[in-house]
């Protein structure tokens, strides 16, 4: 395959690249070739395909923002849509679009498109980058062309140099003038960085581990348990080096308004071959151990200590749908009750399991009687939830992001190419830019005006043209 591709690229057909007059976009004339494989490759590298894929992926992505993505097919089965629509949505895996085979195939197609395109189209731009000058285009149809009233000389060329143009004399009295050539490397940087990011994401998916681990205060979890219960475990992932993570303390800071301000876990990490470390972890401040990140992610109520006539008993709490908690039931005088807790800032409710009616309120420190018993809440036992993650793809993704930003910084700038040359016996200023000609034309008009002012007055003055944007 590689052989064929090389043969194609170096074949005279493809080597015959044509600089279109306005932009130096390389047109691959191999479209003419009858050879199917060649045509397929040219198609795979085409901008038409790129535009179609970008718009298609954008459109397809909308589905996942309309249908909940984390609840499995059941959200569709119970939806009140037309049965046909439900069938269709199930068939395209609309409940998990971003992992559906067809969506991944679209992304892969974009990846391939990008690869082929970069490889077919970009080397000419690098070669061009190495050139000090390019000859003036033959055709004048698409260039802008303005008359100059006098021949170039040192002072007049300085008018251009002062404005940041680089001037080279490529033939006697023929000047090539350009500005911002570096911009031409931007797209290469951008596209290569996209590869780095995608490669990093794929590598992370293959070899990463991602787990959600709740730990109660005083308890601990071991590395192998984390890996075993991980939500995401890539097929190439390695087991973690052994360690044990213990939650020493957990604290929630509230604001006076009752909102959560921040929550903190004090954890102790012990490993057979490392020093024990104690650290505070909070949201946005993870603990990092050998490439494994522990993020403070969530918290909840695991149990509560109930006092009954002075005796303490521990009831486990399970989360209910609305974010509230229900305790395991207990008997009072032959009847079943449970504790219902909406949030830590509100009193807990003592609820009968028969009709779910509240028969009393409980606030820590204040007792309530029910029948002949006195109940109180001694304390809540909280758990702290950690997102534990190991993603070996991250360095590559970040490297790609850095490269991408560098390339992006160049995007708003434009490369201008001008020629000072003769058209018959007149001096002319010719020019082109890859990013539109209207603004370039204005800029050229100003340059020509300054130049011509100089020609008329012969003093190099008259720099009255207003400066145009430097971009």
């Amino acid at each position, binding site marked *: 395959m590689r052989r064929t591709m090389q043969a194609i690229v170096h074949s005279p057909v493809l080597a015959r690249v044509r600089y279109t007059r306005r932009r130096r976009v390389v047109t691959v004339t191999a479209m003419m070739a009858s050879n199917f494989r060649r045509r397929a490759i040219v198609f795979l590298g085409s901008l038409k395909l790129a535009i179609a894929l970008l718009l298609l992926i*954008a459109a397809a*992505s*909308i589905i996942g923002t*309309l249908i909940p*993505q984390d609840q499995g097919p059941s959200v569709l089965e119970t939806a009140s849509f037309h049965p046909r629509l439900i069938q269709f949505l199930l068939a395209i895996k609309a409940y998990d679009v971003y992992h559906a085979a067809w969506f991944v195939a679209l992304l892969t197609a974009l990846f391939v498109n990008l690869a082929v395109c970069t490889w077919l189209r970009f080397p000419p731009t690098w070669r061009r980058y190495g050139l000090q000058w390019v000859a003036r285009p033959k055709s004048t149809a698409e260039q802008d062309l303005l008359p100059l009233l006098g021949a170039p000389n040192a002072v007049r060329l300085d008018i251009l140099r002062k404005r940041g143009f680089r001037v080279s004399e490529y033939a006697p009295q023929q000047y090539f003038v350009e500005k911002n050539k570096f911009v031409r490397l931007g797209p290469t940087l951008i596209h290569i960085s996209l590869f780095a990011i995608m490669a990093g994401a794929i590598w992370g998916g293959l070899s990463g581990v*991602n787990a959600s681990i709740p730990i109660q205060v005083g308890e601990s979890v071991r590395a192998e348990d984390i890996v075993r219960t991980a939500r995401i475990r890539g097929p190439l992932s390695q087991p973690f080096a052994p360690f044990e993570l213990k939650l020493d303390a957990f604290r929630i800071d509230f*604001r006076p308004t009752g909102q959560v301000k921040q929550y903190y876990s004090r954890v102790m990490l012990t490993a057979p071959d490392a020093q024990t470390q104690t650290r505070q972890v909070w*949201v946005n401040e993870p603990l990092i151990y050998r490439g494994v990140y522990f993020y403070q992610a969530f918290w909840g109520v695991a149990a509560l200590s109930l006092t009954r006539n002075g005796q303490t008993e521990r009831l486990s709490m399970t989360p209910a749908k609305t974010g509230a908690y229900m305790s395991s039931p207990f008997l009072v005088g032959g009847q079943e009750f449970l504790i219902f807790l909406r949030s830590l800032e509100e009193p807990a409710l003592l609820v009968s399991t028969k009709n779910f009616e509240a028969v009393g309120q409980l606030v820590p420190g204040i007792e309530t009687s029910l029948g002949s018993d006195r109940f109180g809440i001694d304390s809540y036992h909280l758990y702290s939830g950690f997102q534990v993650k190991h993603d070996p793809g991250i360095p590559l993704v970040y490297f790609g992001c850095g490269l991408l930003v560098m390339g992006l910084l160049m995007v708003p700038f434009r490369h201008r190419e001008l020629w000072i040359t003769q058209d018959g016996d007149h001096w002319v200023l010719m020019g082109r830019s890859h990013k539109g000609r*209207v603004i370039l034309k204005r800029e050229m008009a100003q340059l020509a005006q300054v130049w011509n002012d100089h020609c008329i007055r012969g003093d190099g003055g008259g720099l009255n043209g207003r400066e145009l944007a430097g*971009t």
Partner: protein
Amino acid sequence: MVVNWPELETWGAVTACWTTGLAFLAFLFALVLKRGAMTWVGRGLMGAGLVGALVTLVARGLVAQHAPWSNLWESMVTLLFWVLVFYFVTEIWYRPRHFGLIASPLAFLTIASASMLPAGFKGAAPLMPALQSYWIKIHVVIIISSYAAFTMAFAAALGYFFFRWRAGSQALVSAGGPEVSHAADFNAQLAFFDELTYRLILLGFPLLMVGIITGAMWANNAWGTYWSWDPKETWSLITWFVYAAYLHARITHDWAGDKACGLAVLGFVAMLITYIGVNYLSSGLHSYGFIR
């Protein structure tokens, strides 16, 4: 001297609302009555709006003790600020004709709809744990500046369609007549507004992309995943892809004109959904940032 910051905050927002609204009237007079001086009045009013937005942001920052772009109202005032900055950048660099006429109502709508938000979206509120990060300062402000650049690109596209419409009706009236130069002028304006749209998208696109990258870094820092396909992330990707399609279309097909400006409008719609619509769509990681 004691400065009453909360009062200054309100004062700034009200000023910005009035001045951008009046600027529109000034630009309208300039066009209809053909009074060039009114254009300068309009620009002056837009400048006053910029000052108002800046005062509001500074005051809110001092009152709330955090970067003043943390709830919907604050972010809309920030948007207004950037819209006005990019408006002036466009005026100074490219000097488009009648641009204020299109830009000022957009600026006015931004601040007017911000002030009509229910009180819950407006008040200075402390930040949730996940938002207490220096990333929010960077991420949100970059994203909003990209929205502002796209808003001005949308304004330029509207300018294109405006001249296109005028050129169409003009051509009927003046076919071959003494108005030919007039039609040529319209065509020059068309090409100009088309290219102005392109220039502004070339400005907004990198800002959006850098905004998405910083957002991914923030998410990675706060939640441990840099991409989780939540609705806001996904819509920013959709917006990004639409504008990427725009840029690539311009490279090859010479899609200049109607199709390109249409795509710019489509990108703006996607941007609006990313910015506002998503909050109503569903609840993702970002939802609590704005709607609580």
